[in-house]
């Protein structure tokens, strides 16, 4: 079995309401050192051995991310 991690983030310039709210909330909780919070998705995928990164990229482009608003980055996970 192979594993991939996928990071889905909003494209630059797209306002992220949960991130902005978390940022304000942290500051109001006294964490003044916080200057930016962005909240995206962290997807852990288990696929059959030999599944290529291209194939995973296809899944992202189609379903797991929305190319109109989101970018994604894929990382194969090395087995320990």
């Amino acid at each position, binding site marked *: 079995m192979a594993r991939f991690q996928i990071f889905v983030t909003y494209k630059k310039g*797209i306002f992220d*309401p949960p991130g902005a*709210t978390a940022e304000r909330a942290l500051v109001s909780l006294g964490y003044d050192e916080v200057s930016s919070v962005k909240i995206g998705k962290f997807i852990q995928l288990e696929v059959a051995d030999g599944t290529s990164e291209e194939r995973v990229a296809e899944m992202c482009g*189609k*379903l*797991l991310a*929305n190319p*109109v608003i989101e970018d994604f980055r894929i990382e194969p996970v090395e087995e320990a």
Partner: protein
Amino acid sequence: MRFGVVIFPGSNCEQDVVHAAHVLGHEADYVWHGDTDLAGFDAIVLPGGFSYGDYIRCGAVARFSPVMAEVVRFAERGAPVIGICNGFQILAEAHLLPGALLRNQGLKFICKEITVTVEKSACQWMDATPGSLLRLPINHNEGNYICDPETLARMEANGQIVLRYCESDGSRAEGGSAPNGALDDIAGICNERGNVFGLMPHPERVVDPATGHTDGAVVFASIARRLAEVG
């Protein structure tokens, strides 16, 4: 005329749309998301709800339902398609309409009646005097419309912006009147041709006089009139 109302797993406003159509004297029937035959329908409605639980992103899974390929073809033929709330989200995911719908700015689900202004547009579903106001219920968690500046300019130029949120007197507040943070107060848009319409408010909820006013009827009436005209 006869509306086809698509049921995706998780749709929950399909009955309401059928009821609204009946109240207005039209025929309406359900279309299962696995079906691929739209013969006999004059217009297709993608109703509100939480298709596939709104998981991953609203509309992301539903857009791959077998019926959607037919809906795309139906729309490409110039036949009328409307997406209400979750239906709008599905149309955006399917790229039948530009842009995307993000989480409401306040991070809360909003169910309430708001006011929208009818813009001058090419929309076949909105045969109303530009500038007139409609009171319509909204009911969503992800209605925060967004698109890039070029798309917005293009939509403006083409008359694709159909409805804008406004204050109850029709004015637009300085910081925006959208309850959900939508770009430029956009509540509903159509494609260039005007046959595909997506909107966050629920017109079907305000059609039956037994439960309130009837501001939503114009949407159904407009398309019926249009179809009667073009035959």
